[in-house]
């Protein structure tokens, strides 16, 4: 291979990740598409934005460099060229097997070498749902409308990595990593307590509905994905009938269809929706919600919504 490289002009083969197995669901994500909402194009991007940002900071990448978002582990990739990688989000057992067959375990939120020909294997996380694999230089697939995020609702962005996919790695940034690892809280496994801000449509519900939302935990059902999480818990009763003309939605919106059971919108939520939103999660808590696993329970509390409501 090195001879072929020399005859091709002496340059190294392009650094890349070769996907051996994607696990249940792996997508390329960055911080998503801005400024296209008026064309019906959603933001998309990492479901746990904080975890993606941290992964990039650890490698001295720009904060919005593209990473792999790995759902429930199972990813196996092989390095072409010497790479520097890190894992954030849901911690999972991870091993690196070098080209000579030697295997070692690697840590969470730590900066790790993945030498040419080495294979990285992720097990299943014990807590949390989504693990981010960042590589120094970022995943360098072509941008679509300013972003490398895959929007599973609209189909925009790069294809889902499959066995045999080659994901090119961009040039290393000028800066160098300054920390070997970051002490980060791991996703919680018990009842998640998440802060919400009332509105924009809490007045479409009966007076006790916000209290009902916060009174008992909701369970994350299996009907949950990057678009949204269907929750099961106290029914939220409407005060008025009739249709709400479709209106713009945001990540973290708790949209309530006629069943009274809320859907919590995540990164690939529809740009507009026709059911009233009783409350919206605080930004940081959207990230925490995105790590909740089916069967896990969520409890809401209203924070800071009243101060300046009109």
């Amino acid at each position, binding site marked *: 291979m090195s001879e072929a490289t020399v005859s091709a002009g002496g340059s190294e083969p392009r650094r890349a990740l070769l996907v051996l197995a994607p696990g249940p669901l792996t997508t390329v994500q960055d911080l998503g598409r*801005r*400024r*296209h*909402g*008026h*064309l*019906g*194009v959603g*933001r998309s991007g990492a479901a746990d934005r904080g975890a993606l940002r941290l992964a990039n900071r650890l490698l001295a990448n720009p904060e919005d460099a593209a990473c792999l978002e790995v759902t429930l582990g199972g990813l196996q990739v092989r390095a072409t060229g010497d790479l520097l990688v890190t894992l954030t989000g849901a911690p999972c057992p991870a091993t690196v097997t070098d080209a000579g067959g030697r295997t070692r375990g690697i840590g969470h939120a730590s900066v790790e070498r993945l030498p040419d020909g080495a294979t990285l294997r992720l097990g299943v996380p014990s807590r949390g749902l989504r693990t981010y694999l960042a590589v120094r230089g970022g995943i360098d697939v072509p941008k*679509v*409308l300013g972003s490398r995020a895959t929007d599973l609702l*609209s189909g*925009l962005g790069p294809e889902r990595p499959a066995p045999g996919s080659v994901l090119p790695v961009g040039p290393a940034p000028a800066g160098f990593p300054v920390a070997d690892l970051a002490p980060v809280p791991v996703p919680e496994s018990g009842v998640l307590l998440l802060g919400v*801000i*009332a*509105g*924009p*449509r809490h007045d479409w519900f009966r007076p006790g509905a916000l209290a009902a939302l916060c009174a008992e935990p909701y369970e994350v059902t299996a009907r949950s994905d990057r678009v949204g999480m269907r929750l099961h818990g106290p029914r939220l009763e409407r005060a008025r009938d009739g249709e709400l*003309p*479709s*209106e*713009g*939605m*945001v990540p*973290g*919106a708790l949209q309530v269809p006629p069943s009274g059971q809320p859907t919590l919108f995540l990164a690939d939520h529809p*740009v*507009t929706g026709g059911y009233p*939103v009783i409350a*919206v*999660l*605080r*930004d940081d808590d959207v990230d925490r919600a995105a790590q909740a696993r089916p069967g896990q329970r969520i409890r809401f509390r209203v924070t800071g*919504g009243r101060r*300046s*409501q*009109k």
Partner: protein
Amino acid sequence: MNARVHRCGEHAVLVELDRLEEVVALYDALAADPPPGVVDVVPAARTVLVRFEPPACRAAVESAVLAVRPAGGRGATSGEVVIPVVYDGDDLADVAGLTGLTEREVVAAHTGTPWTVAFCGFAPGFGYLIGGDPRLAVPRRPEARVRVPAGAVGLAGEFSGVYPRESPGGWQLIGRTETVVWDIAADPPALLRPGVRVRFTEAR
């Protein structure tokens, strides 16, 4: 303009208006001169969602939005497109029945009055067109189709639209066009952007 501002999480406000025309006017003004920190302005049927990022704060964005004095009527900058349509849609006869017009009169009504894109939604590049002949207002189909082809031209409520790509859909289909309304390689990728005027012509 009677604008009500609703809080929508930490970094967005939802501005509610009485009429679609006011939505269009406010969107135009905000798109032409976005307040500092505003990263997305999403018009819909009765609302404009304004998303912002730090260091912009909600109070500043809110007062900037409420201070907007929309100019009367659409600016001339949004452009105009002509879309040739073959009027042979599967629901053309039903639309004629629902409106009390003949099929030929439906075609004449659809091509006779220019439309304007009010907002996009449902799918990337799906523009909701308003301002057409009011006799064409029809309900959505009782059941959505699983597969509507790209280029299908439809009616629903006060709106007309062109399906940007194959998708499920519940609009009454009256025809089809070869015009590509969504192309991610183009800049901008959507032909039917808020404010664009649309004239349909009959292709034979």
